[in-house]
Structures are given as structure tokens and as C-alpha cells.
């Protein structure tokens, strides 16, 4: 990326076509290397995108994507007119924001803790153990969660030491968000911390020595050396995370929720699943999915802009 911008500055006067030509001549092995990636995106990400058209149509399989009649924003209006629309949007935001507020700092804290460990053997064993849940299938994880929080399960019993309600935790609307967020942290914390651990290892050790000579204690060193050292990584990860604000992991929700707790657990994508796959209302569910993606796209742009304004780090 750096190289490209330097080159662009040098051949400023030439047209883009000529610049590209000369650059290809100079760096052709690099262009060959990137070709498969470009092809991948074109074939698997951009080509199928024309299918999003059916969000503005009344899709009929016999007429195909292009032949189906146009209906404009009809499908979107249907979604807004749904009596549960406000609730679905609220749940999506609640679950998503709680996951960010609690789930985002967790791997950073874990990485900082690992960083302070002095015994290499213990450190690597602990790290490996923390990755493991990531590799368990989501279906199995949800099975575990259900067993633990239903009546007689271990977490249920711990919770009932404080409260005295008799129903399983997944039958209480107020418990769903904590269950969702905490189990998510449990499963992903180790895996997500890898990138921060990598960033930590890149911090110059001399900075720590200098800080120590200046009389900084452990805590001060974390605040003034470690955190600024990994700040760019944190910001980039944060922007990327904001981009999936509305894409709450719906597979997990579908595996965990039940009608009793719809009021706190039904999100855009789980609703979409019920409509799209159970009723074959393809155009409608495409519209809902498209709306979801559009908001996500908007979020990532806004966050990137904010980040570029207030710090020097941004995605582009």
C-alpha cells in the first residue's frame, strides 16, 4: 500500500491507464499473485450480488431474477409495517451493543494478562486452552449452554443461590442477553486475543526499559507503553466490529431462543430466517437482508470517518 502511494506521487502527471501499465510492467509478479484473490471476489462476492435485485421485485422462480416484476420499495415497506419491527430492531441493537461493550475489551484484557505472564511453558499451555472453545461447533456449544442453564444445570444452580425463581434461565427474558454475551466471550476470547498478542510482541522492549528507568511501575507501563503500542490494532478491530453491528450471530440465536423470550431475543436475521426459509418469501427476506447490510455498510463508513478525525488510524 505504501509503495503504491509513493509510486502514484512520482508519476502524478501520467494518466491512470499509463501509470497502471508501467506499474504492471515493473511489478508483474505481484499482480499475478493478486489475480486469484481478485477473481475470488469477482466470482464469489460480486457476481452473486445481482441476486439482491429480487429485494425490489416479486420473485417468481419460473420467471427468474430478471424476469420477475418490479415492485419498488414494497418489500421494505412490509418490513417497516410489521408490528414487531420496533422490537426486532431494538433487540438487534441491544444484543449487538452489549456484545461490543463487554465482548470487545475482553480479548484485549486477556492478551494483556498473557503478556504479563513470565513462565513461557505455562503461558503457551494457558493460551492453547483458551483457544479451544473456538473450535467447538456452535451447535454443541448451544447444547452445552442449554444444559447448563436449564433446571438442574450447574449455572442454573449457581444463579438460584442468589435468586429463587424456579424456571430455567432460558425461560426468563431478562437472562437472554447475558447468556448470549457471556457464552460468546467464553467461546471467542482466546481466539480473538491472538491478534492482540501478536501486536504486543511487536512493541519495542527498549520502551519498557526506558519506562522502568523513569520509575514507571507495572500498571503505569501498561497504561503508557503497552496500550498505546497496540492502539492502532484496537481501533482497526473496533471499526471492523462496528461494520457487523446488525449482523448478530443469528445461528446462535435460533439455536437458543424460544417463543417465551422472543421479546428480548428475536433479531432481524432470526426473523428473516423464519420468514424466508419457512415461508419461501424470498423477495421479502432479501429486502430485510439487504437493509441489514446497508445499515452495516453505513456504520463502517461513519466509524471510519470518526476514527480518521479523532485519531490517525483508519481503514482507508
Amino acid at each position, binding site marked *: 500500500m505504501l509503495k503504491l502511494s509513493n509510486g502514484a506521487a512520482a508519476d502524478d502527471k501520467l494518466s491512470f491507464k499509463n501509470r497502471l501499465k508501467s506499474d504492471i510492467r515493473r511489478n508483474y509478479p505481484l499482480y499475478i499473485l493478486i489475480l486469484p484473490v481478485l477473481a475470488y471476489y469477482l466470482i464469489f462476492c460480486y457476481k452473486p450480488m445481482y441476486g439482491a435485485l429480487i429485494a425490489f421485485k416479486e420473485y417468481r422462480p419460473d420467471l427468474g431474477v430478471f424476469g420477475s416484476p418490479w415492485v419498488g420499495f414494497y418489500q421494505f415497506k412490509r418490513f417497516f409495517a410489521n408490528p414487531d419491527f420496533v422490537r426486532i430492531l431494538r433487540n438487534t441493537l441491544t444484543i449487538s451493543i452489549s456484545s461490543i461493550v463487554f465482548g470487545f475489551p475482553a480479548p484485549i484484557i486477556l492478551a494483556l494478562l498473557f503478556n504479563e505472564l513470565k513462565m513461557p511453558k505455562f503461558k503457551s499451555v494457558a493460551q492453547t486452552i483458551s483457544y479451544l472453545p473456538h473450535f467447538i461447533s456452535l451447535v454443541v456449544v448451544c447444547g452445552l449452554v442449554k444444559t447448563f442453564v436449564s433446571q438442574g444445570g450447574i449455572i442454573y444452580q449457581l444463579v438460584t443461590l442468589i435468586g429463587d425463581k424456579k424456571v430455567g434461565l432460558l425461560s426468563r427474558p431478562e437472562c437472554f442477553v447475558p447468556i448470549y454475551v457471556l457464552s460468546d466471550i467464553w467461546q471467542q476470547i482466546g481466539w480473538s486475543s491472538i491478534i492482540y498478542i501478536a501486536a504486543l510482541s511487536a512493541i519495542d522492549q527498549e520502551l519498557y526499559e526506558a519506562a522502568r528507568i523513569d520509575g514507571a511501575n507495572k500498571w503505569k507501563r501498561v497504561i503508557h507503553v503497552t496500550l498505546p503500542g497496540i492502539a492502532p490494532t484496537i481501533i482497526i478491530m473496533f471499526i471492523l466490529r462496528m461494520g457487523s453491528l446488525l449482523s448478530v450471530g443469528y445461528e446462535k440465536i435460533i439455536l437458543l431462543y*424460544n417463543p417465551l423470550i422472543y421479546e428480548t431475543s428475536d433479531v432481524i436475521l432470526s426473523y428473516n430466517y423464519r420468514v424466508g426459509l419457512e415461508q419461501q418469501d424470498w423477495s421479502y427476506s432479501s429486502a430485510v437482508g439487504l437493509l441489514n447490510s446497508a445499515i452495516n455498510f453505513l456504520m463502517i463508513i461513519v466509524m471510519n470517518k470518526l476514527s480518521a478525525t479523532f485519531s490517525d488510524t483508519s481503514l482507508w
Partner: protein
Amino acid sequence: MNTKFKKLVRAISLVLCVAMLAACGNGGKEVAKEKDANTVTYWVSLSGNAMQTVTNLGETPFAKKLMEDLGVTIEYQHPAQGQAAEKFNLMVAMGNLPDIIEYAWNNAYPGGVAKALSSGIIQKLDLEKDAPNMAAYAKANPEIDRMLKTDDGDYFGFPFIRGDEYLLTSAGPIVRADWLKDLGLEEPETIDEWTEMLRAFKEKKNAKSPLSVSAANIEAFGLFVGAYGIADNLYVDNGVVKYGPAQDAYKGFLTQMNQWYSEGLLDADFASIDGATVRSNIINGVAGATAGSCGSGIGRWIAAATEEGYDLAGTKYPVLNKGDKAQFGHYSLPVTTTMAAITRDCKNKELCAKILDYGYGEKGQMLFNFGIEGESYNVVDGYPTYAEIITKNPDGLSMADALARYTVAYSEGAFVQDKRYMEQYAQLPQQKAALTNWMDTDMKDHVMPTVNLSEEERESIATAMESIKTYKNEMEAKFIMGVEPLDKFEEFQAELAKRGVEQYEKCYQAAYDRYMSR
């Protein structure tokens, strides 16, 4: 070192080249095999039971005999397990269809069978000419004939038909028979007797959740709610289509369930439990009553239980007053939504129709239900009796798996299922008694048939359907658990009305009327 490395690289490349050439050779042969006029392609999901022994239906003795009888070659194509819906959607959207597609067309194709027919995805049948066996069957059973055609009177395919009342009911309430005996109780018939029984289970048998049943099964079987003269969904009452939860009687059901719940008789987690939990509850004595089916319920649970004297009984669907006949219960339509259809890309319609029609004739029915005479069944006193290869398979296959090799009776297909299959499949006396009990309802008069909604009707209720279902499921659970007080029932009805329940009933009423006048 370097030359050694180069040699290694050369050796590897050589091996790879040879492997590629070999692969090409195989591929070439595959392509060379041309599709002759006597071959048809047949897309169908391979049943889980058949999957135990074969990877393609064509390898089973059943399919071989079928091809031999008809003198044709059938190339079966199967979607990967669990991906049938995705595959089906892709196929109809992308075109290039196999000659025959067997699937739940009416549910899976947007707009249902009528739409698939009018848009030309599947070919219309001239019943007399194309399918003489099915035409004869339809003539002999006018009730079924009505289910075989669209509102316009067009015949569209070869559905799986359950050929006897006996095959239409296979699930219902199940209780611990040995507990009843210990406690000196009769099998419960009324709701009050149920209450008494559940209390006894709780107090004297220490059952933690005497009644362990999921909300989904309560709805699907119309269990308990039927005692109040309604179903938990759409049903027909003297020619009028009604949505059960919108009726006043629904409150009676909710009140009763709420009472059971607050007494600790109904499983506290009924809204979230799944089949596996119910199974372990009923096997381990946590529960004494539940709902389930004949084969995967009673049969498997009795086999899995380790407790001495463990026994189950399928009891009658409960009613309010002793001596009444239950109005509602589990009931599947004789003509299911699974159907083999001849697609628009089929070039040889007569041949496909001949193949599919076979399962509706006398000879074909024997093959589809019982397999090969002398091998998988013998006729004893005029009754086709499964041979030992099915009932006590020498290779240790379960009866269902063995059946899947010689017949399609256990799963679904384009044929008429025979009562005599079920009589032999349900082997335990408990299962036979359960079926008799469960069948004793008038559900036949109340069941909503498979109707064709017009495009306008479909559109006008598309959003309402999901919204009503979500709201009803949520409120049902809340009322039963006491999260919402029952005096809010009128508000519940008002909200249902706001969500368009009247329009919902109206559309189905119109479609039902068209159905009845076919």
C-alpha cells in the same frame, strides 16, 4: 542437496501428472455413457434409513426390481443430507431439471403446486391417458380424488398417499402404564382425570415434572386444547375455517395449562425443552406423561428404559366430559405434500408417467409396500407377511433400515401406502393399543386440507401469517407460565385481530370453499 531436491520435485510432478491423466480417463468414460431413450433421471432425498446401507437408491433390491419390472433405467439423484431444500430451490431457480422431482412441492414451491403447474415448471397430467392406475384409484376414492387436483381440476403429479385411516394417526398422549397400575388409576380420559393422575405422579412417584411436553408438540397434536373444542391452529368447524387461538374457548385451555404449570405438574421449561430432553425425562422417571409417536416414541422409549417393569401406554385424547368423543387429535392428510412430479425438462413424459403410475397399481403397491415376494415377504393365508430378512435381519439391521432396502413403506414415495405395513411395523401390543386409542377422534372433520391460495390471497396475508404465529407462540407461553395474567386474554384477542387474523381466516375460507367445490 540442490540436485536431490530437484529430483524430488520432478518425481512428485510426474506422479501428479499420471494421477491427473488417470482421472481424465475415468471422467471420459462417464461422459461417453449416453442417456438412452429408456433412461430417466429421478431426483429424490435418500431416506436416513436407506442411507445406512446404500449411497444411491438405485443400489437397493427395491429399485433393481422396479427397473426390472418396468424394463427401464432410473438414474437416481440425491441431494446431500440436510441440503434438500437448498438444492431444490437452486434447481427450480436455475432451470435444467431432472425428469422427475420428488419433494414436498406444495410447501417448497412459492405459490404451491398450482403455481408450479401454471408457470410450467411441472407438466400437467392427463390422468386417464398417462396414469391409468392412479385414475382407477381416484375413481374408487372420490375424497382422495379431490386432493389430487387443483381448483381448476388439473392433475399435477404423483403424491404419496396413505391408503387407510389406520395410517393417518401415529401420535398422541403417552403415559407411564406401570405407574398407573401401581397407583390403581385407570387410563385418564378427561382433563380432570389428567389432573388427578399428574398430581399422583408428582406426590407418590416423585416425578419432578409429571407432564413433560414441548410447546411445539402441544400445538402439532392439538393436545389438551382439543378438549375445549378448538385446535391450536387453523381448523374447520362445520365448513367454517377458524383460527383456534382467536376463539373464546382458547382461554379455557390456557387457564387449565396455567393451573398445571403453577402446581408444578407441567414441565417448567416446556417452552424451551427439545425432543432429547423429553426423551430422557420420560425414560428416567422425571416425567410420567408426554406426547409422542408410535415408533420413535413408545417403541424406542420402552426399548431404551432400564427400569424394571417400565411400561408405556398411549391414551385417548383427553376431553372435558366423561364419555365424550375427542374432537381433535393428531391426523395427517391421506394425500401428503410429498409428490413426484414430471418436470418441464422431461422429454419422455409417457415413460415417466408409466414409472410413477406403477406404485398405484396392484402389482406396484406390493413392491412399494412389501418388496419382493419370496425374499422380503411371503403371502401367508392371503396376508403379505414380512420375512425374517425384514423383521430379524441377519446383518443386524433394524426393521426400519431393512424395510428401506426392499420397500419405501417406511418413508415416502409415489405410491399408496398399505395398512398391512403398519400392522406389522408396530409390533408391540402397547403400540397397537396406542394407535387404536389415538385414532378415536373426529379430527377428520376438522382438519384443514391442503388448499391452493390464489396469488392475491397469498400476498394479502404473507406478513400477517408470520406475525400472528410469532405473537401467538409467545403469548401462549406467557399465559401458561403466568408471566401475563389471564385477564389480559381479551387484549390478546384484540391484538390478534389487529395483526389480521380475520383476513387470515377469510383467505383460507375462500380457498377451502374452492377446495370443497372441486
